[in-house]
């Protein structure tokens, strides 16, 4: 009997010890059933923030709620509009008090497969990224600690945090986890391009297929940076910062990845964005300088600025660069590439009820 008691005490101690080590975990029926096509890679989901129904639902509410901003006027959705595939149709976003930022709002698509965030890659997790705009004086102009206090006092939110994370005393970490859970489930996978995996070129019109061929051959060589088959689908590329000739040597100093790494060799290197829904996400580039896809194609065809960090994929053809200032695409070729890019539009994504504003009746 005494032995059983000793074994029992050991087991109980073990169980309590394990519970102390593990953070709040989802109950089995709260586990979020994340769906992605079989041809997508496994998602990069942190073990300390598993997807739960309660976490995703809470994150969606926070995403659409201006309570995150100093004067309750700006929500995440103010600058990441679902109609624009969670980008914004303005060059720069307007924050609290009319403050204007200096970068274009990035589209939020298939973030579950990405590892670095913001144009300069300064956030290394989605959880970290989610808190960035709250603390940015040009955006929500708040502090995540203040927001946590507001949410802890909220009759609406405190119980929801309790349900999702086990505590009604909200912390900045819990806010980041909730918002990132919602962002992680935002998936685009029903474009015309997705059909290519089943029916190959029959997915496209003749013009789209001509553009596809330019994109995926060395004529356009877009795939060198935007990835080939799997990357374009889910955008999980390990080399994702490139200098595409937007800036001169003087203009690029301290901009892009070098803001983080402090290396001059990273000046002017920006995160290569997903091309999914590109038809909906203009204006384009980190500074929103191109209003249309036609302007974008003109840039790649003849507007490349040479600088010390210009990507090898441009400098490897000095003759083209010298003669055309870029790829030297014909007007027909540009139209064909644009037609192909539009096959990445996914209206099922922009109309997905799971991504809509939960406060709208």
């Amino acid at each position, binding site marked *: 009997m005494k*032995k059983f008691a000793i*074994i029992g005490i050991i087991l109980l101690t073990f169980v309590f010890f394990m519970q102390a080590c593990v953070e709040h975990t989802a109950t089995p029926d709260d586990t979020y059933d994340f769906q992605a096509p079989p*041809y*997508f*890679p*496994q998602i990069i989901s942190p073990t300390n923030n598993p997807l739960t129904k309660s976490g995703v639902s809470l994150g969606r509410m926070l995403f659409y709620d201006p309570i995150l901003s100093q004067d309750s006027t700006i929500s995440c959705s103010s600058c990441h509009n679902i109609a624009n595939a969670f980008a914004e149709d303005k060059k720069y976003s307007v924050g609290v008090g009319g403050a204007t930022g200096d970068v274009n709002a990035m589209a939020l698509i298939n973030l579950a*497969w990405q*590892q670095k965030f913001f144009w300069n890659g300064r956030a290394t997790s989605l959880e970290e990224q989610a808190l960035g705009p709250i603390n940015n004086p040009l955006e929500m102009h708040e502090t995540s600690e203040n927001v946590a206090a507001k949410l802890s006092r909220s009759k609406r939110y405190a119980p929801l945090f309790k349900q999702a994370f086990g505590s009604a005393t909200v912390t900045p970490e819990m806010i980041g986890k909730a918002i990132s859970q919602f962002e992680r489930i935002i998936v685009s996978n029903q474009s015309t391009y997705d059909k290519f*995996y089943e029916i*190959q070129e029959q997915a496209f019109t003749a013009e789209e297929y001509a553009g*596809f*061929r330019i994109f*995926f*051959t*060395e004529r356009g*060589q877009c*795939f060198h940076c935007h*990835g*080939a*088959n*799997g*990357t374009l689908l*889910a955008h*999980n*590329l*390990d*080399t994702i910062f490139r200098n595409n000739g937007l800036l001169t040597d003087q203009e690029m100093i301290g901009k892009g990845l070098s803001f983080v790494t402090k*290396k001059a*060799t*990273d000046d002017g290197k920006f995160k290569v964005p997903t091309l999914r829904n590109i038809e909906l996400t203009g204006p384009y580039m980190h500074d929103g300088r191109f209003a249309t896809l036609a302007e974008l194609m003109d840039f790649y065809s003849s507007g490349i600025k040479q600088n*010390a960090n210009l*990507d*090898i*994929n*441009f*400098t*490897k*053809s*000095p003759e083209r660069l010298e003669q055309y200032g870029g790829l030297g695409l014909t007007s027909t070729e540009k139209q064909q590439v644009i037609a192909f890019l539009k096959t990445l539009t996914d209206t099922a994504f922009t109309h997905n009820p799971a991504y809509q504003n939960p406060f709208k009746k």
Partner: protein
Amino acid sequence: MKLQLVFVLFFFSLMGCTWDNQDSTGSLKVNFAHTFQDATLQILESNQLIYTTTTGNKFNIKNLKYYIAKLTLYQNNGAKYDVNMVKLINPMEQNTNYQNYTLANIPNGKYTKMSFIFGVDSARNTFPFGLPNNSENNSMEWPFTLGGGYHFMMMEGVFQNSKSDTVGYAIHLGVTPNQFYNEFPLDLTVNGNDQSIDLQVNMEQWFNGINKINLNDGFGYMMEDQQKQLLFKQNGVGVFTLK
């Protein structure tokens, strides 16, 4: 007392499993040691031109990744140890796991030959996703329009061209005919132990092999140029040597 006996037996049974493995198999870690003219290869972020080809091109290497596949060990009696592996070698990664491959659970015995394929074996060099669908393999994809599968090698950098401008080059090898087979005599006795060997990867050989490469001859767009890829395939045969 009985309880203590159970614990002791359980402990010994676990240890017994480990000892069995150590007795009957061993491991071999193959380190890929990249050199240029017998010095450790330098992969640069800057445009400094630190190497010269025999044709006079001053150049550097800024990006290097390649696959090896089907690393296999052979015994004199015809027995072979083949784990059907594929490995992306990436000397740019801080993590040295990208610069070695460990053959584990090799049956004890004397091995006299080692071989591998440079590139991805044809069974897995397919569209879509012949290899596991993850970021490292996706970053090596060879477009469907050009035959599909994977880049066998990406080697990129800059060089000083005939106009004295610093411009890029991109040596990209892919498509199944451009794989090549490597084999080396080996003197390895596996006796339940862990061992390692160095495979020297002489990068100079890519440029100064049986084909003397002049980067001015247009090595920016070779993915659709089988003749240019063939030059590197032929040079590649002498790149790897067992130390």
